[in-house]
C-alpha cells in the first residue's frame, strides 16, 4: 500500500509532458478563443458577453460564402487526392518489392524535405505568366501569348492535392499491404472481374486507410493558408484568410476567434459525417493512420 502514492506520482510525471502539451498548446488556447469569440466590444477595452460575432458571420455573405467554398473545395481536393493516391498506393503495397518499394516511398516523401512555402513558390515558377509552362506552350506553338495559369481555382486545387498526396498514400499503402494475396486470388478464382475484386474486396479492406487518409488530407486542406493565398491570389478566398485578416489586418480578435471556432466545428462535422457515411469508427481509423 505504501508504494501506491509513489506509483501514482511516477505515472503523473510520465504523463506530465503530454498533459502540458495538450493543456497549454491545445486546450487552453481553444478555451481562450472560445471565450474571445463570445465577447462583443461595446467600447474601447470594454467587452460584454454575446453572440454578435457569430451573427456577423451569417449576415455578411462574403464570410459564409467563403466558408462554404472552403468546405466544398476541401472535399473536392480530398476526393481527387484519394483517386490519384489509390493506384500509387496499390502499386507500392502490392507490386513493388524490397528496394523499389522503399525508393517509391522515399520519392513521395522527398518534396516534404523543403518547406511548404518553397514548394508552393516552385509551383508559382511553373505556372505564372512568365513561367516555365507558359514559355514551353509558346515554344511549341500551342499559345501565341503568355498564358497565366496562376490565380484560379485549378491552381489552388493542384497545389493542395500535391501537398496532400503523401498523407493519403502512406495510410492507404499500409492498409493495402495487410491484404492477403490469396484473398485477392480467391476473388478472381470465384469468377470476379478486376472491377468486382476491386469494389468488393480491395476497397472494403482498405476502408480504414481510405478514411484515415481522407481525414488527414481534409484537415490539412481546410486549415491550409499559404497554398490558397500564393496560388489563388485574390481569388483564393480561403476561410483561413478571413481568420488571418480579422486577427492581423483588422485587429478584431473576437471576430477572428468566432471564425476559428466555426472552422473547427466545420471540420469536426465533416469528419463525423464521413465516418458515419463509411461506417468506420474513429478507433479503427486511427490504427491505420
Amino acid at each position: 500500500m505504501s508504494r501506491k502514492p509513489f506509483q501514482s506520482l511516477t505515472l503523473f510525471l510520465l504523463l506530465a509532458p503530454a498533459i502540458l502539451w495538450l493543456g497549454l498548446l491545445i486546450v487552453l488556447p481553444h478555451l481562450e478563443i472560445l471565450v474571445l469569440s463570445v465577447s462583443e466590444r461595446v467600447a474601447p477595452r470594454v467587452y460584454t458577453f454575446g453572440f454578435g460575432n457569430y451573427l456577423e458571420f451569417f449576415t455578411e455573405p462574403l464570410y459564409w460564402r467563403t466558408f462554404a467554398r472552403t468546405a466544398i473545395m476541401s472535399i473536392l481536393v480530398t476526393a481527387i487526392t484519394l483517386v490519384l493516391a489509390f493506384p500509387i498506393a496499390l502499386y507500392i503495397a502490392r507490386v513493388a518489392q524490397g528496394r523499389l518499394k522503399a525508393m517509391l516511398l522515399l520519392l513521395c516523401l522527398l518534396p516534404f524535405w523543403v518547406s511548404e512555402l518553397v514548394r508552393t513558390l516552385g509551383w508559382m515558377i511553373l505556372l505564372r505568366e512568365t513561367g516555365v509552362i507558359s514559355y514551353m506552350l509558346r515554344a511549341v506553338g500551342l499559345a501565341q501569348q503568355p498564358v497565366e495559369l496562376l490565380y484560379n481555382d485549378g491552381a489552388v486545387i493542384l497545389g493542395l492535392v500535391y501537398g496532400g498526396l503523401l498523407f493519403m498514400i502512406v495510410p492507404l499503402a499500409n492498409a493495402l499491404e495487410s491484404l492477403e494475396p490469396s484473398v485477392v486470388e480467391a476473388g478472381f478464382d470465384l469468377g470476379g472481374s478486376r472491377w468486382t475484386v476491386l469494389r468488393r474486396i480491395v476497397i472494403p479492406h482498405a476502408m480504414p486507410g481510405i478514411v484515415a487518409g481522407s481525414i488527414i488530407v481534409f484537415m490539412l486542406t481546410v486549415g491550409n493558408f499559404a497554398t490558397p493565398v500564393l496560388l489563388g491570389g485574390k481569388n483564393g478566398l480561403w476561410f483561413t484568410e478571413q481568420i488571418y485578416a480579422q486577427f492581423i489586418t483588422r485587429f478584431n480578435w473576437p471576430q477572428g476567434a468566432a471564425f476559428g471556432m466555426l472552422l473547427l466545428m466545420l471540420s469536426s462535422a465533416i469528419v463525423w459525417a464521413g465516418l458515419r457515411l463509411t461506417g468506420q469508427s474513429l478507433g479503427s481509423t486511427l490504427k491505420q493512420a
Partner: protein
Amino acid sequence: MAQSSDLDLVNVIKRFGAYAAVNDVSFSVASGEFFSILGPSGCGKTTLMRMIAGFEHPTSGDIRIRGKSMIGVPANKRPVNMVFQSLALFPMMSVGENVAYGLACRGVPRAEAEERANRMLERVGLKGFGDRRVTALSGGQRQRVAIARCLVLEPTLVLLDEPLGALDLKLREHMKIELKQLQATFNTTFVYITHDQSEALVMSDRIAVMNQGRFEQVGSPRELYHDPATPFVASFVGETNRWQGEAAPGPNGAISVRLPSGTVVQGQGRVTDKASLAFVRPEAIALAQDPSSLSNLPNRFEGRVSAVLFDGANSSLLIDTAGFDQPVRAVLPQAGPLAGIKVGAPIHVGWTADAMKVFAA
C-alpha cells in the same frame, strides 16, 4: 479424348528461369474422382495446382477441362474453383455473402443468390450461419464455408490446396472423413494437394506421387502402398524399413541383397544394378519369441528390443538386430502375446521374400 475425363494435363512443363518446377507432367482425372497429388514441399505440386486454377501459365503443354483447352483462359473464366491453403475467406463479408459472392459475379439476382447460398450452407451443416462474421467461426466451420463457396458454383473441378494444414489433429481426422463424404454427396471431381500421406491415402480414389517436378507413380492408395514403382514412393508413402546393399540373383526367382555387414536378405524386384535399396513395411515383419514359428520364412533374424513405441493401435518396436546398421521397425499388435514386451527382451523377427521390395539405388 475420353468423354468421362474432367481434367487432362498433357506434357505440362513450367520453368522459372532454368529451373523446371513442373517437368513434363501428364495425367487425367475422371469425372467424380477424388484425385490427390502427394509430394514433399517444393516438389512443384502447388505450381501445378496454380496452373490448373489459372494463376500461373505453363511454359509448354496443354491443360484441358472436359476436353477444352484452358491455355489463355483467365482464372475467373475457368470452371474450376479452389480452396486455398489459408482458406482465403473474405473477412469483409458475412458467411452468406462469402458463399453468394461467386453467384453475384455471374450475375445471379441478389435474392436468388442469397437463397442458393443459404441452401448450400444448410447442406454443409451451417444452417443459420449466413449472417455471422467469418472471424466468428471455428476452424472446421471456416473450412466448410470455403468449400461451400466453391460448390455453390457447381464447378467441373474443385482444387484443394492442403486445406487441412492449419487444423489441429483431432479436427483434421474428422475433416478428412467429412471432405470425403461431401465429395461423394456432391459427386464433384476433387483434385487435392497435400504433403500428408495419411490425408491422401484415406480420401483419394487415386494418388499421384510427385517429386522434383515429376510424377513418380499414379495409382490407387492400395497400389502405391503395396506395389510402389520407385524407391521414392516406397519410402514416402507409409512407414517402412530401408536398407542399402548389393543385389544378386537369389533362389526361387528372388533377389538376394547383401548388406554392408555381410548379412544376406531375400526380396523381390527388378534390379539391373548391383547397388540397391530394400524396403520392408513394419507390419510385414513377423515377431516371435520362439524361432520355430518363423521357420518357413526366408529372412529370419534374432534381435533385442531397443525401444517400445507405444501409440495405441499404431504401436511398434525398434529391434536391434545383428547385421543391420539400423534397428528393424516392426508393428507390435496390442492384442497379441507380445503386447507387454519390455526393452531388452530377446525376440525373433522374420519376413517373406515377397514383403521386401528391392530397387536399384
